[in-house]
């Protein structure tokens, strides 16, 4: 096989690779870290949308968010990102298939089940 043929072969192997063959799920801990990083970025320019507004937009809240949401505190306290202090975030950012089973936890939604 000549050098030219070899180059052609190498080119074909690397350029014609089947995208479908490489479709793969991102690890759930990667999604968890991206989500945390995005929320951190969002908070750099002001508070998050409050939990009341999020709920009004039709999104479900996790049990901890529900508790905060029904408290008679101001809207400001409902804009805090409660997940910073939640063990679910820590688990999800550091392990695959973290044992998070309660509803509407974003970190739970990233798990492969």
């Amino acid at each position, binding site marked *: 096989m000549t*050098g030219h043929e070899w180059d052609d072969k190498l080119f074909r*192997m690397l350029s014609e*690779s*089947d995208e479908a063959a490489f479709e793969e799920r*991102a690890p759930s801990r*990667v999604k968890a870290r991206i989500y945390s*990083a995005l*929320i951190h970025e969002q908070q750099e320019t002001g508070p*998050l949308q409050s939990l009341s507004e*999020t709920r009004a937009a039709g999104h479900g809240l996790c049990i901890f968010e529900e508790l905060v949401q029904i408290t008679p505190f101001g809207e400001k306290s409902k804009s805090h990102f409660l997940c910073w202090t939640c063990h679910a975030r820590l688990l999800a950012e550091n392990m695959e298939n973290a044992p998070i089973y309660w509803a509407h936890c974003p970190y739970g939604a990233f798990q492969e089940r």
Partner: protein
Amino acid sequence: MTEHRPDTTVDMRLVAEVLRKDRKATAEFVSRYTDWVYSYVRRRVMPQTEVAEDLVQEVFIAAWRGLKSYRGDASLRSWLLGIARHKVDDYYRKRLRTSDWPDSDDESVAEPSVIPMYEEQMDRALLQEKAHSVLASLPEAYCLALLWRYQEERSAREMAQLTGKTEKAIERLLARAREHFKRRWNHDGA
């Protein structure tokens, strides 16, 4: 003649919610698109998995910073993959600028010209798997140069412009990278 545009209504709704900093919509954004971006990036920076993970995060941060500019002219997925392509290019450019280029004299073994016959009969998936495993065994500069040239289809001139090297230097690097690739390929197949 009417211009065909993709229906991006759902994408636009999600973008509007993310821009309002709705945490659940942001989670949906990550959930819905990370697999696409990850597949795209990982395939291009194989075998460096950790690099892929960092780049994917950079893609999403850049997307958030530029989200206001998303107009729905293309699907959100295509828009994100466009950012991913830039990030991958940046990665190749920076690494090729800073990584050590192995000396041409090392491992100076005659270039083999024959590929064992059985490899001609290997199916495409196996060939690609082997190609990536051989790439993974090469010095980083060789691996990056081959991926950038052949997978991303960048010309030697473009690579030279982006890295600040001369076209001749890039061509020499590519020649050595191909030589090493062939040698490892045949060695692994022996």
